[in-house]
């Protein structure tokens, strides 16, 4: 069963544990500047929103790459950058409509979320379950359940 990252911004406190976990597993240091997931703080609205690659099926980054350095991990559905092949041309960073592929000047390669091979550290590190790793076919399950709970079930509700 394929899974995907599911983000519920309502639950996010903006603590950046996801960025710390991401940079730790990918770079070996705690460095939010090198995180593949980013939390945005819309201060005046009091909203914190984590954002990262959605792993498009028809991945524009993958199609744009002139050296085929971005490939599909069939098991997880992740689009994965090969450091050995990436030439740092940054065409993928332009192609991605969501801005989730970015250049890393210290290595000369691009970086993006690869779902940690199917066990994403950001989801494990999130203290409020704002980031979860769930059945890719049922990312709407929680929201459906919430609405279902509000549905008047007539006799059941009165019982």
């Amino acid at each position, binding site marked *: 069963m394929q899974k995907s990252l599911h983000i519920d911004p309502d639950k996010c406190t903006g603590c950046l544990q996801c960025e710390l*976990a991401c940079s730790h597993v990918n770079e070996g240091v705690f*460095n939010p500047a090198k995180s593949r997931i980013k939390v945005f703080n819309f201060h005046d609205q*009091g909203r914190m929103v984590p954002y990262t690659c959605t792993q498009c099926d028809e991945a524009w980054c993958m199609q744009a790459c002139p050296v085929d350095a971005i490939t599909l991990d069939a098991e997880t559905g992740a689009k994965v950058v090969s450091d050995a092949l990436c030439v740092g041309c940054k065409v993928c960073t332009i192609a991605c409509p969501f801005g989730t592929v970015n250049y890393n000047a210290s290595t000369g390669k691009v970086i993006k979320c690869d779902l940690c091979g199917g066990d994403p550290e950001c989801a494990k590190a999130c203290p409020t379950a704002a980031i979860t790793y769930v059945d890719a076919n049922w990312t709407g399950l929680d929201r459906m359940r919430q609405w279902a709970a509000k549905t008047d079930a007539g006799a059941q509700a009165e019982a």
Partner: protein
Amino acid sequence: MAWARNVLRVNLTEGTCKNEPLNMDWAQKYLGQRGLATKYLVEETDPRVDPLSPDNKMIMTTGPLTGTCASTAGRYSVVTKGALTGAIACSNSGGFFGNEMKNAGYDMIIFEGRAPNPVYLLVENDNVQLIDASEFWGKSVWDTEEGIKAKHQDPLIRVASIGVAGEAGVKFACVVNDMHRAAGRSGVGTVMGSKNLKAVAIRGTLGVSVEDVGSFMQATAEGKQTLADNAVTGQGLPAYGTQVLMNVINEVGALPTRNHRDVQFEGAKNISAEAMAEPRADGKPNLVTNAACFGCTIACGRVSTVERSHYTVAERPEYQIASGGLEYEAAWALGAATGVDDLDALTFANFICNEQGIDPISFGATVGAAMELYEEGVIGDAETGGIECKFGSAKALTDLAELTGKGEGFGAEIGLGSKRLCEKYGKPELSMSVKGQEFPAYDSRGIQGMGLAYATANRGACHLRAYTVSSEILGVPEKTDPHVTEGKAGLVKAFQDATSAVDSSGLCVFTTFAWSLDDIAPQINAACEGDWTAEKLLEVGERVWNLERQYNCAAGFTGKDDNLPARLLKDAAKTGPAEGLTNGLDQMLPEYYEVRGWTDEGVPSNETVERLAL
């Protein structure tokens, strides 16, 4: 590892910025942040220096854990001689500035001298420059922070700055980072203003590593689980924030009200966490969300709005936003201390404190003192500029917040702090302060240990030096009777020493509702070189406490300054469970000196100095 081992020394007079290695011998003895920066200040400055002279130094400092994934590990402190107190000042802040500083490769930044003209420091890893700040001078913290990010086209820059209050010499000005996180107390922002330093803007991308990463990940994961499982850090603080305390402290009769005339506030429920969650006229509650500082898995921070039709913001859309507050201390000072129970007025006044960089505790408490002066007829409309400065007046509170934030009109006198204000008008006894710093939100008649904690706190009256409320009211780590003085000398010392160690690590003291030093030591030990046990941390804490004390002694403070206002020692609490009680400081202080290993005059004895290798 953990430490960046790098100090940035900025001489504002000369306009120079130089790197130097961190003194690692001192790091082993003082750990970091509060302790280590105090060591630098002690070694490099004369304790008798005028806090606002160029010879005073201001140190922004991180701890070894700052920037790591340990829960709450984003703290930094500003260490200097306090403008409000003339004592050692160490004001600790969260937000995201501390980790950015560490990520840029610095344990601390030492500011010396005074810039000939207003400047700000821009740090992008090892690219460091002082830049003319004339376009930001006279601007608020909020405008400065946004202005610097816009100017450098980099929204990821983190900024710590002063508002107009710090420029104008308001004695309790703060350094504010990330819009509403503050190194708040003792006037550290006033010192920054005296140096013509408007802001420090940092972008760090180097990363932070630790000594033994495997052990560190395990120790920090266990620590996070302990916080999540604890009722205070796992439930109370995330849900209600520090404001969870308002009704609790009121009920135990320890909520100082109207300049400590009373110990219970009839309007407490209107300014409590519960009130913040209730829908208002517009259908929305005051509270928008809770928010975390860097790396914090507790997330006690509050983000709130003022109701849009409220008189403070109805005509001012720029304040119809969500921003930081109310936290308990601010809600108390702006509310109970002044007798104001208008939650929107408090939220607005708190916005102004953040926007212009003033400490809401000292501000609110000083307004409370001014209200008593006004009601006593000591000052009148001529002094206040026509402001009807009566207890309970929301309008007086919010008008004075705006005036004090800019150091204008009667706000300039509020900006003196309560000690100087009350002395000026011949009523020094009405200042509710120790060593010139106003009390926070706990009345020491109803919580006896806090009286000793306030009297002996090295930065003046402070709840964050020995939070015995934790034991006396909340029962953490074990319950003690808040109405007795027995055992409080040892309790205060234990809290002071442990807190000094936590404040030197990069962690937040709020973790100690759930963590003891036994939980913290494995995290530090894995991150840092050296052998860090709970015992060693406690020794570091005691060493730091005594170093601060020595600084104050050299600055001219004596045992006579370990005192409380007569009101707390002579006027009994009028209502509540502590009715009839005064604070029994005289029963605690001699024993405290003894357990500290200090002389009868409150000076660390030669044996103590030797034992702690000071």
